């Protein structure tokens, strides 16, 4: 911090020739698997076998190999980038020109600066690990190749998103990850619920993307004004779009376009979709672009605020912020590696990345920043409280992700961009660990996701348990793992920020308010994460009965489909009964009920997960301990290895973010955290923070640890070894109303159903009624009138017109019958006719002339 006075200069571009390789490899991998994966699996593996054969090995060699190659190129790029001077760390490669319109030229180009480099490393690195994890997790999946194809496709799109040099490429990636996300959530598309979850994610994202596109359009609308002719700045003083588009002088090549745009202080001022050029135009004030943007208002609202808020709507959709977060918990229907990769580590952080990438725009509008930070804080606490009482382990993690994304938005919203990005990175590590750990647990417990049916797993799954614990420590915010450093920095920056505004009104109190919300959310985070840990890994194993039977049913290979049906039916019935129970019993009988309100999702998840288990386990009897009476078992090495690496990463990445305070105190150094230093040239938008004293900073760090401890202690007291459930249930009984509301996720889905779906359906129904009664009535009335006329007309037609026509026809028929005698059918007769005609023509010609 404290570089406010640095003179801003245009970005120095270093051209690279290998950047295209990074997204190419996953694309090639996806293509290969899409085209040949099925064949490979069929030829080299036994088609009947669900267990991985040689074909599956080939499939995952292709996918993992592509990821490793991509990661290797990314690491090489990182080394290259590191070798450049800090201000010149900008690698760029233009592949080809996508389109040129007038002076605007849009290329398919990639760029790597410090920010996108970080993202690329996270995506390819963690992506590689999750691919390896998937080998173990999806081993029994029949559509193995499809899974890896989608995963590679996703990585390709995500790399486009972060490496795109301009809005167009980024937007391709933005939509591409949406598509891949949809495909992967609905991976088991035969289950209607999962297919619906995929659809929900896609549709909710459309809402966000709509805002995003409007924001982009507004941005270019505003910039269009800035790019207009101003004396002395632009060469062509009268900018007429049609002339510009059609004239031969308009740029037809990139080079011409370059030549046409005038330069101010070495910066091209003209239409562009390029991030770097846009950034240069905005930050170098001599171009006047910033002045113009800041001065534009739409109906009295600052254009920049509007742009910022609308772009953030896009981020809301992609990054699951209030109110568009509803798709993310449902997205847990996808396979667990997908949840880890897409819905925790990478795609959902696209919104954060986008805000950080456009920091030079957001920083100009305190209102937009305040909006981002406030939504982030509200989401953080809101999702954290929902996470308190979820029983589905993946749902807990999903809400936790939403909450952590909220923290990231607090970071980028308050202007602590690097802290937000740092949290993005730490979150990628520990949340990937947690998700993969939960995946390991789910696999170990035979596709059981309900934490009430787990417990005591630390005996059976030691590696999973330890990695899960480390990640829990990280997310809870103890200083021995990375989560503390990023979260603490975000909260401290939130507390000291005084520049935020809301809708144009300066609100210096917003920063501390966000801090308080964030601190409570952090406490909650610690609580629900330790709760999930204790419920899953301590106490006695509570699952097994149902799965014991399930396993046996699966062993009866001839009738496994029937067995599955029989199994699913009672499960659904039971869920139904339990669900109905609280409503019938009322308050009195409630405490006696150990498992109130088994949620529909859980029941469905259970039944649905049993389906692949029953279907796939039958021919493959050597599947670990899964069929030894239902005891949980540790996962294969691909899974535990990945877990160990990610857990180590969760700890080691803390060294990237050692606060300046600590260095000052312990080492008498004054260097900023490594990651801040690294990102500084990109995140040049400087925001003035209030300066707290050293003592205050220590106090706040202590508060952060205290919050984590409170959550930890509370969770331990209640859930450790599942001993104190009675106390918990008593508490639930006392606060039943609140508990029910929170348990049901504040009825947000129901609310959406009320305010969005039902009105939409009602409108549709009313239209239907209108159509059926009014429109159809009109149509029928018109039809009746027409019918009368038609009958009348028919009579006329029949007797008058037909009479005339028939008369004419018979006359012509008679005439034709006579004349047809001329048609002898002989060529020579016709030739006579033709020659006679020619003679007549010649004769007439002579007579006239």
């Amino acid at each position: 911090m404290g570089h406010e006075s640095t003179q801003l200069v245009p970005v120095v571009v270093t051209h690279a020739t290998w950047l295209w390789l990074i997204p190419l490899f996953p694309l090639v991998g996806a293509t290969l698997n899409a085209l040949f994966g099925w064949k490979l699996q069929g030829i080299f593996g036994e088609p009947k076998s669900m267990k991985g054969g040689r074909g599956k090995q080939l499939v995952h060699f292709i996918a993992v190999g592509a990821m490793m190659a991509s990661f290797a190129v990314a690491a090489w790029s990182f080394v290259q980038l590191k070798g450049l001077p800090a201000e010149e760390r900008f690698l760029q490669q233009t592949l080809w020109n996508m389109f040129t319109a007038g002076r605007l030229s849009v290329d398919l180009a990639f760029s790597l600066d410090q920010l996108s480099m970080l993202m690329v490393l996270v995506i390819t690195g963690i992506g590689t690990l999750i691919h390896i994890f998937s080998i173990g997790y999806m081993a029994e999946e029949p559509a193995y190749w499809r899974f890896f194809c989608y995963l590679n496709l996703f990585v390709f799109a995500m790399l486009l998103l972060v490496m795109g040099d301009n809005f167009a490429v980024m937007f391709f990636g933005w939509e591409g990850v949406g598509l891949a996300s949809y495909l992967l959530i609905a991976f088991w598309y035969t289950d209607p619920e999962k297919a619906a979850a995929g659809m929900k994610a896609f549709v909710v994202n459309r809402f966000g993307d709509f805002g995003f596109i409007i924001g982009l359009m507004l941005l270019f609308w505003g910039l269009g004004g800035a790019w207009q002719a101003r004396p002395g700045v632009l060469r062509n003083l009268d900018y007429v779009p049609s002339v510009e588009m059609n004239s031969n002088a308009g740029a037809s090549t990139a080079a011409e376009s370059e030549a046409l745009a005038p330069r101010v202080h070495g910066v091209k001022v003209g239409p562009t979709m390029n991030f770097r050029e846009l950034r240069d135009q905005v930050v170098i004030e001599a171009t006047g672009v910033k002045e113009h943007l800041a001065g534009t208002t739409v109906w009295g609202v600052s254009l920049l605020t509007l742009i910022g808020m609308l772009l953030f709507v896009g981020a809301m959709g992609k990054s699951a912020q209030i109110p568009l977060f509803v798709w993310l918990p449902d997205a847990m229907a996808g396979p667990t590696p997908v949840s880890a990769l897409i819905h925790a580590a990478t795609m959902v952080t696209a919104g954060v990345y986008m805000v950080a990438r456009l920091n030079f725009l957001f920083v100009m509008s305190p209102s937009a920043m305040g909006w981002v930070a406030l939504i982030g804080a509200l989401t953080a606490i809101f999702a954290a409280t929902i996470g308190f009482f979820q029983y589905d382990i993946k749902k807990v993690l999903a809400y936790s992700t939403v909450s952590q994304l909220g923290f990231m938005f607090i970071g980028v919203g308050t202007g602590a961009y690097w802290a937000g990005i740092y949290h993005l990175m730490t979150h990628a590590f520990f949340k990937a660990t947690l998700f993969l750990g939960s995946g390991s647990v789910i696999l170990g417990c035979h596709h059981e996701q309900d934490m009430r049916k787990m417990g005591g797993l630390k005996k059976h799954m030691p590696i999973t348990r330890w990695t899960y614990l480390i990640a829990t420590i990280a997310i809870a915010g103890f200083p021995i793992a990375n989560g503390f450093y990023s979260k603490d920095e975000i909260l401290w920056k939130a507390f000291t920020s005084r520049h935020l505004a809301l809708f144009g009104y300066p609100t210096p109190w917003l920063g501390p308010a966000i801090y308080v919300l964030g601190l409570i959310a952090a406490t909650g985070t610690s609580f629900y994460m330790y709760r999930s840990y204790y419920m899953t890994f301590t106490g006695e194993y509570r699952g097994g009965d149902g799965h014991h039977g399930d396993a046996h049913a699966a062993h009866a290979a001839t009738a496994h489909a029937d067995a599955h049906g029989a199994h699913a039916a009672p499960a659904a019935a039971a869920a139904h009964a339990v669900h109905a129970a609280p409503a019938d019993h009322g308050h009195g009988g409630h405490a006696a009920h150990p498992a109130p309100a088994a949620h529909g999702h859980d029941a469905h998840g259970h039944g649905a997960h049993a389906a692949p288990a029953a279907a796939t386990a039958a021919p493959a009897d050597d599947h670990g301990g899964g069929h030894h009476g239902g005891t949980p078992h540790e996962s294969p090495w691909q899974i535990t290895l990945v877990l160990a690496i990610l857990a180590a990463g969760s700890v080691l990445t803390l060294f990237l973010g050692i606060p300046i305070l600590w260095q000052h105190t312990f080492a008498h150094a004054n260097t900023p955290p490594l990651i801040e230093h690294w990102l500084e040239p990109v995140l040049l938008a400087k925001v003035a923070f209030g300066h707290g004293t050293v003592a205050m900073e220590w106090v706040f760090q202590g508060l952060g640890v205290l919050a984590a401890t409170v959550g930890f202690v509370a969770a331990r007291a209640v859930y450790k070894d599942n001993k104190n459930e009675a106390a918990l249930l008593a508490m639930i009984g006392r606060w039943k109303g609140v508990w029910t509301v929170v348990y049901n996720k504040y009825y947000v889905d129901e609310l959406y159903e009320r305010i969005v779906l039902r009105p939409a359906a009602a409108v549709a129904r009313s239209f239907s009624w209108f159509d059926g009664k009014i429109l159809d009535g009109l149509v029928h009335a018109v039809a009746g009138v027409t019918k009368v006329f038609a009958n009348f007309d028919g009579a006329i037609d029949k007797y008058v017109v037909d009479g005339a026509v028939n008369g004419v026809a018979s006359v012509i028929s008679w005439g034709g019958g006579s004349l047809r005698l001329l048609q002898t059918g002989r060529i020579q007769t016709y030739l006579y006719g033709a020659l006679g005609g020619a003679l007549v023509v010649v004769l007439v010609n002579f007579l006239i002339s």
Partner: protein
Amino acid sequence: MQISLPHFLIVGALLFCFGLVTVTTRRNAVGVLMGVELILNGANINFAAFNHYVVGGVSGQVFALFVIVLAAAEAAVGLAIVLAVFQTFKTIDVRYADLMRE
């Protein structure tokens, strides 16, 4: 009178006229084709004559060559048709090949 353009034109015109008469009066399909050949020859003589006396060069001769080529093609196809007609009607009298009147 020196042999000059009109002489050839007269020969061409007479060939044309006889060809025309042949085409229109012959009842034998092969005869009709012969008439066509006569007409084409009349035209060819005109081509060659005009080339020699009016234009110079060889372009008229080239035209005549093309006419010869087309005539050969026409003869081949025409005679094949005659054979087909003969096959169908058991005669090559064009008066009986009058299916076109229907």
